[in-house]
């Protein structure tokens, strides 16, 4: 294998791929980075077995030559040294050559490195994802959807399936749902996916956080393909693969109440600030409990009380209210996270009694929903 490459292109690719490589892994080969040279370009692969990132450098783009003198082949290079070496090389081009003894020679200007490589056959085979099983959506919309749901995944390993976000594609609607069994976040987006439908695809929250970091905020399309045990997010030069969580995601649609006894319409910002203030005195080890009481003339009272510290009350004006009076306690942390994720100026909160879950939605629209369980207080 041999090729000569523009150093800045290689650096960018290596940095992307490094995000998937972790130094402590059960499989020794995964401490390395796979480099594959083909006539049409160079592919770098990094993986920690949960997520895998492939970055592609084309031979040329818009008439500009990126890679030259290609002799096909592949090799695995130890990822601890390779990125630093590339970063500190003197010239703008790098020549990489591999001999039969898996010795990797890196040349740039007068500098020459010789590294021991590993056999690329030892590297895990990433699934070849068929393109007819895929759909497209804008990158920024995907990132937005991830941000609105992923915070709600469970951080406990007791029910591993809840550490993921469930993807469903049905009737041209893509849905993300995440829950940790105390709250639930769900987001719908209409997607043009043709005949494609799937359900019970559960993507680990950790992978989605990582994906969110890697993708740029652009309107370019990202292609999403689902296979039996992996999901692929494909942008122009970057493939992001994640393993899925094994098991059945609990049925969540029945948890969402359909009618409400009390409905509050309010400005999001004022409510967030009031609850945030009240949360100052709420205690972490008691679920950050804050109480909301409806008052007459379109006011609500937000209150928190910790006997050993003190208490706080605040009256907050709301826009309007329908239905019965209500006193309800809830975790300020969950409600704040939910309200912030909605990204709407005005929200509608639907309650069905003090002991039943309540829903937060934007005032005009059903596409995002935050469901939160109240806390029982005496």
């Amino acid at each position, binding site marked *: 294998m041999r090729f000569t490459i523009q150093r800045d292109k290689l650096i960018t690719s290596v940095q992307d791929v490094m995000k998937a490589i972790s130094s402590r892994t059960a499989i020794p080969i995964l401490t390395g980075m796979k480099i594959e040279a083909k006539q049409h370009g160079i592919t770098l692969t990094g993986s920690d077995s949960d997520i895998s990132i492939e970055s592609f450098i084309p031979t040329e783009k818009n008439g500009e030559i990126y890679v030259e003198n290609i002799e096909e082949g592949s090799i695995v290079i130890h990822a601890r040294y390779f990125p630093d070496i590339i970063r500190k090389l003197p010239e703008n081009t790098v020549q990489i050559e591999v001999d039969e003894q898996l010795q990797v020679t890196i040349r740039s200007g007068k500098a020459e490195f010789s590294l021991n490589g590993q056999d690329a056959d030892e590297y*895990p085979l990433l699934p070849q994802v068929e393109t007819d099983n895929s759909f497209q959506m804008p990158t920024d919309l995907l990132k937005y959807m991830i941000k609105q749901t992923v915070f709600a995944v469970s951080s406990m390993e007791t029910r591993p399936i809840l*550490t993921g976000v469930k993807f469903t594609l049905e009737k041209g609607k893509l849905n993300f749902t995440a829950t940790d069994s105390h709250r639930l976040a769900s987001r719908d987006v209409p997607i043009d996916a043709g005949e494609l439908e799937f359900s019970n695809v559960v993507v680990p929250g950790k992978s989605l956080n990582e994906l969110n970091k890697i993708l740029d905020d652009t309107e370019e399309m990202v292609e999403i393909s689902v296979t039996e*045990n992996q999901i692929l997010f494909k942008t122009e030069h970057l493939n992001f693969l994640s393993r899925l969580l094994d098991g059945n995601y609990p049925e969540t649609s029945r948890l969402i109440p359909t009618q409400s006894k009390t409905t509050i319409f309010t400005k999001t910002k004022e409510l967030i600030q009031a609850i945030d203030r009240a949360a100052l005195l709420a205690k972490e080890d008691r679920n950050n409990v804050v109480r909301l009481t409806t008052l007459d003339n379109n006011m609500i009272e937000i209150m928190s009380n910790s006997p050993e510290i003190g208490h706080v009350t605040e009256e907050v004006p709301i826009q309007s209210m329908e239905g019965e009076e209500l006193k309800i306690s809830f975790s300020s942390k969950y409600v704040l996270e939910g309200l912030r994720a909605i990204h709407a100026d005005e929200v509608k909160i639907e309650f069905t009694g003090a002991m039943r879950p309540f829903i937060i939605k934007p005032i005009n629209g059903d596409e995002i929903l935050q469901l939160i369980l109240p806390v029982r207080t005496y």
Partner: protein
Amino acid sequence: MKTWSEATEVQPLVSKIMINSIQKGRLSHAYLFQGERGTGKSSLALLLAKTLFCEHKTGVEPCHECVMCKRIESGNHPDVHWIEPDGQSIKIAQIEELQKEFAYTGLESNQKVYIIKDADTLTVNAANRILKFLEEPSRETTAMMLTENSQSILPTIRSRCQMLDLRPLNPVHFQQQLIEEDIPKSNARLLSALTNNLHDAHELHQDESFVQARRLVIQLIEMFTRDSDDAYLFIHQKWIPFFKDRLEQEQALDLLLLAFRDLLYFHIDKKDSIVFFEQNDERLDQFILSFTEESMIYILQYILEAKRKLKQHVQPTLVMEQLTLQIQR
């Protein structure tokens, strides 16, 4: 043992059971391989893993050449997980890691295999943690546990696995092997009694301190026969300073045990089974006058007891002092 046919020669019964279950597609979800060191537990586990993953099998035999086989061999296959003791035991964190891994789908296939080496070293917490996991495997999971001592595994774990007892190696066969490798016959006998592993045998054979250890054991027995109080001093001046770490101490006791067993064999005229001494060693005639058959059986028991105490981290000096007193009595 690289193929099933080779395995059949060394472990006929177990291999037959395995081959039949592979052919009929009736592999169990969990196996417990039990057998002494060197009986081929790891090789069997490796072979089974290859059989499960290999893409170019001929009958039940994996090809050993495809990427699957090669990577299983080198420990790089992403869906085959090896758990080995981290220090003295297998810790709960290792099992948690494994369980987390199994919450995910397989990286390349839907099959997963995990192999737990030295499963008797699972800590109590780790063992309990793995119970439910063993009982309710996710789809197409095969567990293999390897142990030298199935009795020290929780009965609840044992009952969830198919147990396979590996036959102990034939010591004569191993002796022959050692003699073929240019180890003198007298040494080969002793080494085959101490270990089942060819590599270990060679190392011991070349080790200077092993010769010294052997000499010390003989000296100690001489002390006992002279019936003097010197034995106690000997322990403190020579024995304890020489055998420093636990492995050495255990090995010294093994040697002592073999020596006394030889005396007993000599007594009952089973000279063929003698391993520690030469069969026509004059010292044997002399030593034997000091011990009766009955006392020797007691001594063997005391030595076994001492070995057990060492394993339980009793202070080694105290163990040896007590043993000396017991033998002298």
